[in-house]
Structures are given as C-alpha cells and as structure tokens.
C-alpha cells in the first residue's frame, strides 16, 4: 500500500500544485462559476491521461483554492466571486460599509481553511460507513436520482414550479439525446456546460432582442469602491486560529462536520442554512456578522469536498449536485471514465483509488491549496482585486466563455454538440431566471434523463 501511495505521489503533488495555482487565479475573477471552470479543466486532465491520483488532487486542490480566493472580490469589491460566494454578500457588504472589509476577508478565508482540513477525514469516514450500501445504491440508482432530483427541486427557489418543470426539462434532454444519437453523436460535457453557462447564453439572446435591450440600457459605468486593506500580523502566513475567536472556530468545525453529512443537498442552500443556524445563536450583531462569514465560507469548502468525495468513494455514482456538476468528469468522462446506465456498472476514480489514497491525497490536495491560496489571499488581496477590476473587462470574460462554449461543443459533437450547448443553455437560463429552476436541479434533470428514463422505459 505504501509503495502504491509513494509511486503516485509525484504526480499527485504536481497536479495538486497546478490545480491550486490555476484556480487561485480564477477565483479572483467574479462570475467565474465553479461548473464552467472546474468541470472542463478537470475533464481535460482526465482525457489527456493523467494518473488517477493526479486527477483527484487537481480537482480537490482547485475547488478548495477557488473557494478561498473567491472571498477577495466578495469582500473588497462587493461582487460575488462565484455562485458559492453569493450567500456571503450581505454580511460582507455591511463590514465593507463599516470600513473593515479586510475582517470580512480574513474571517471567510480562515473559516475555509479550518473547514477544508476537517472535511476530508470526516468525509472519508462517512463514505466508509455508507460503502456497504454501495451495491444497493448502484442497483437502485435510477430511482434514487429521481427522488434526489425531486427533493433538490422542491428545496430550490422555484419550489413546486421547479418540481413540475423537471418533466418538460427532462423531456427536452431525452429528445436532444435521441436526435444526436440518430447522427451517431453521444454527448455529456456539452450538457453540463450548457446548463452551467445558461445564464450567460440567455442574457446574450436577451440583449439581441430590442425590447429587452432597451430595459438593459445603463447610462454610466458600474461603480465600485475598492476598500482599503490593513495588515495586522507579522510574517507571511497568518494563523487561522488567531484570526477566529474560539466560538467562531467551534462553530466552523461543527458546521463543517454537519454539512459533510448532508451531501445530497444543494451546496448554496447548505451554506445559507448553516449560516442562519449559527447566526441565530450569536447575540451581538457584530459578532454575528463575522461568525456567519467564517461559518458560511467554511461550509462552501466542506460541502464541496463532501458532495464530491462521498458519492465518489461510496458509490461511484454522481449522487449530489456537486458530483453531477463541477465534479462530473471524476465520474463520467468517456471513454476513460464511464457510468453504465443499464447495469449500474462504474469505471472511474471509485475503482481506481483505495480508501487510503482518497484520504492521503485528499489531505495533500487541501494542504497544497492552503499553502498557495491562503497566504496569497491574505497578503495580496487588495492588489489582486484592484488588478482584476481595473484590467479585466467583462467583455473579455464573456469572450473567454464564449470561446469555451465553441471549443467544448465542437470538440465533443461538432456542430450538433454546439447546438446542444446553446439550446440547453438558452432553455436552462430562462427556466432558472423565471422559475427559480436553478442549476443544481438542472444537473439532476440531466441524470434523470440518462439514468432513470432508460430504466423506466425498460420496465414498460
């Protein structure tokens, strides 16, 4: 076992460092949603044949780093760094207005550090407890996905509208799959990308329409105030336990453990709920602001780690919103990793890595992310935020993502693949905006289409 661990160590180390550096930088750019960035790059790493340990550390170090540096635009500019940062905007804005945005930043990042370190061992233990049910879960996966999808839809902002909209949405995906199959094209990532980038695609269509364009006219540039930053420690690597007080550390640890166990729910919802639970127990309003931020950012880390790792280790099936979205290439990246919908057979990291490897490389990935993203965001937050907001225009970000749509769509399925990305994005974007049928529900809808629908039609 030790030999196997050591043999893959160099590649695990190297890919973890690459993941941490790349996603520390991406985290600074607001609007860089996790699924649109983590999923395609992880897919690429899988398909060029990086060994399993490297794929795993790349993904995990990337996700953990991104959820640290995403605190920089959130705290200093008042723009959410990504989807998971949105539940922290309100508290961060108040601290910004009180003139202490650096406190918001440090509480968030320190909470993230502590939660990420705790989440890996907790997740591994919990996955081991669930593993005996793996065979049963793989057997009943089509129905479990249906139940999970209905639950996630009900708890989304759309409530019953989202539950009912699952039907038509699944129908569209089944129809698109039959259409592409008729031309010998089988698509996976194109759907993920379409769903994740739907809000951009639907917005681009909207501004083409004259009536909506008139509504979206702005008469001056957006105004942001960049808050000052004050360094209050000596050296390069601040101690997270000194940034948080003992109650904050306690709550961060408690919610990190709790949110590691609730791995089937939407990560954004868990972040909101855990924050509310803790906030209601803190008496003073200032203490409540800072504690909520530490806890919430901690949950963004722990819930991501748990939602990716528990389904991967215990079942090999993407049975959570994160596993179905940003972590999808760890489960399903044909031809290398596959999930067979008919038999429930899986061939992915689930089979390729053992328990010890999940634990040791998982901790390695988190430590690499901490060594790179944590001191970087603590020391250079302000300069990084100033650079991004002054030099990287929104047009440039949109241009990059449109390039990504073209490359991934054409790569996977030629012109048909591209049309599927645009169709899914347009429909999903509108459903999300108008009904609150959000991205997590859409991912589950995709899995109903590929797992549940074939199983049900086989019964008929």
């Amino acid at each position, binding site marked *: 076992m030790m030999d196997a661990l050591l043999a893959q160590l160099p590649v695990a180390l190297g890919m973890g460092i690459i993941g941490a550096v790349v996603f520390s930088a991406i985290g600074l750019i607001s609007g860089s949603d996790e699924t649109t960035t983590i999923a*395609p*790059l992880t897919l*690429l790493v899988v*398909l*060029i044949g990086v060994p399993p340990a490297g794929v795993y550390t790349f993904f995990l170090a990337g996700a953990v780093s991104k959820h640290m540096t995403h605190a920089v635009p959130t705290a200093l500019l008042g*723009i959410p760094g990504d989807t998971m940062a949105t539940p922290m905007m*309100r508290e961060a*804005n*108040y601290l910004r*207005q009180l*003139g202490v945005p650096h*406190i918001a930043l440090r509480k968030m990042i320190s909470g993230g550090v502590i939660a990420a370190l705790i989440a890996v061992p907790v997740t591994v233990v919990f996955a081991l407890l669930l593993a005996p049910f793996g065979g049963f879960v793989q057997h009943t996966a089509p129905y479990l996905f249906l139940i999970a999808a209905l639950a996630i839809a009900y708890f989304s902002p759309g409530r019953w509208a989202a539950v009912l909209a699952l039907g038509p949405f699944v129908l569209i995906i089944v129809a698109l799959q039959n259409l592409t199959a008729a031309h010998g094209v089988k698509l996976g990532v194109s759907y993920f990308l379409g769903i994740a980038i739907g809000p*951009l695609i639907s*917005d*681009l269509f909207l*501004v083409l329409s004259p009536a909506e*364009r008139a509504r*979206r*006219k*702005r*008469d*001056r*540039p*957006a*105004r*942001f*105030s*960049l*808050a*000052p930053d004050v360094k*209050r420690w000596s050296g390069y690597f601040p101690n997270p336990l000194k940034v948080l*007080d*003992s*109650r904050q550390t306690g709550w961060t640890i408690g919610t990190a453990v709790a949110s590691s166990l609730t791995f089937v729910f939407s990560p954004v919802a868990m972040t909101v709920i855990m924050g509310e639970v803790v906030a209601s127990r803190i*008496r*003073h*309003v*200032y*203490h*409540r*602001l800072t504690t909520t931020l530490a806890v919430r950012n901690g949950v963004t880390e722990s819930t991501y780690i748990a939602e990716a790792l528990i389904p991967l280790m215990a079942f090999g099936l993407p049975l959570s919103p994160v596993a179905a979205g940003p972590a999808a290439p760890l489960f399903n990246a044909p031809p290398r990793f596959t999930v067979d919908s008919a038999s429930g057979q899986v061939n992915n990291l689930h089979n390729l890595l053992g328990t010890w490897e999940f634990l040791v490389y998982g901790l390695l990935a988190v430590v690499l992310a901490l060594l790179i993203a944590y001191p970087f965001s603590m020391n250079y937050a302000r300069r990084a935020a*100033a650079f991004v*907001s*002054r*030099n990287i*225009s*929104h*047009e*440039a970000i*949109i*241009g*990059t*993502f*449109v*390039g990504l749509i*073209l*490359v*991934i769509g*054409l*790569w996977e399925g030629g012109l048909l693949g591209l049309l599927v990305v645009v169709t899914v994005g347009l429909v999903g974007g509108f459903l999300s905006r108008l009904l609150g049928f959000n991205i997590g529900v859409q991912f589950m809808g995709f899995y109903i289409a590929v797992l549940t629908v074939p199983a049900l039609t086989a019964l008929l």
Partner: protein
Amino acid sequence: MTMRNDRLLEVWNDTVDGHHLIGSLIIGGAVSLGAFQTAEWLLGMFIDDPRMARTYAMLFGIIGCVVGGAICAYLFRPKREVVEDTVDTENLQGVLAALYADYGSRGGVEDLPEAVRSELRELELEEAFLVYERDHAQGDAVAVTERDLGHAGREGVQS
C-alpha cells in the same frame, strides 16, 4: 477602444459596451476556434490516435480561449469606476442603524467576550457601537428613522 455611455448594457451581472461585446464575441470565438482547429490539424500529423490528437487540440482550444480573453482585455477597458478608499466613516451611525434594523441584536458591546471586544477596539469601531447602543437603548433598535438608514440602508437591502 473608447467606450460610449449610450452603448452601455447590463449583461450577465456587469456593464458592457454593446460594440465591445460584439468585438469580444468575434475575437474570443475566432482565437479559440482557430487554436483548436489548427492544433487538431497539426497534431493529427504527429499523433497516431486521432482521439488523443483531438483531446490535445482541446487543450490548445482552451488556451486559445484564455488568449482571446487577454486580447479582449487589452482592447476593451472595463466599464467600471473603481473608487479607492472611500469608506465614509462619518456615516457609521447610519450604517449601524441599518445593520441593527436588519439583524437585531441581543446584548450590547459590554456583554461580548473579551476577544471580540478587543477586536472591535483594534478596528476602532468599539466607540461607534457603544454610542449607537447608548442612543438606542432598551429595544429601541428597530425604530430607525428614514434619515438614519439613508444610503447605507438601501445598499444593505439591495445586497
């Protein structure tokens, strides 16, 4: 390229210039696709397995996306006014009013654990909280006036 205020639009949660947006779509699309197609053609000559050649071509396509984005960033400046150091400490009481109205608070600064209290002191906020709590003693915290809320109140709600 200079932007014009009459072409500003809100797209995907930020402000863009319509013409610059079209430019970015063309540049971003052309550079990424160009990189992908060229790489696929060139790699096809050296790599026997066409599937692998196509995967590596995707890598160059993604690099092309970033290069295209960098060109757009160079050509089109951000439509953001970034103002520095404008924390308006004069309005602290207004911010606190919005904060207390939004969250409510049980107990005052005096009841805080010493660690939190000294954190407030280091941030030079302790005094402001004490003043606010003195002026709005005894469950009066919710009764804030429109003037108190002011700008800070609206921003708090909007976020």
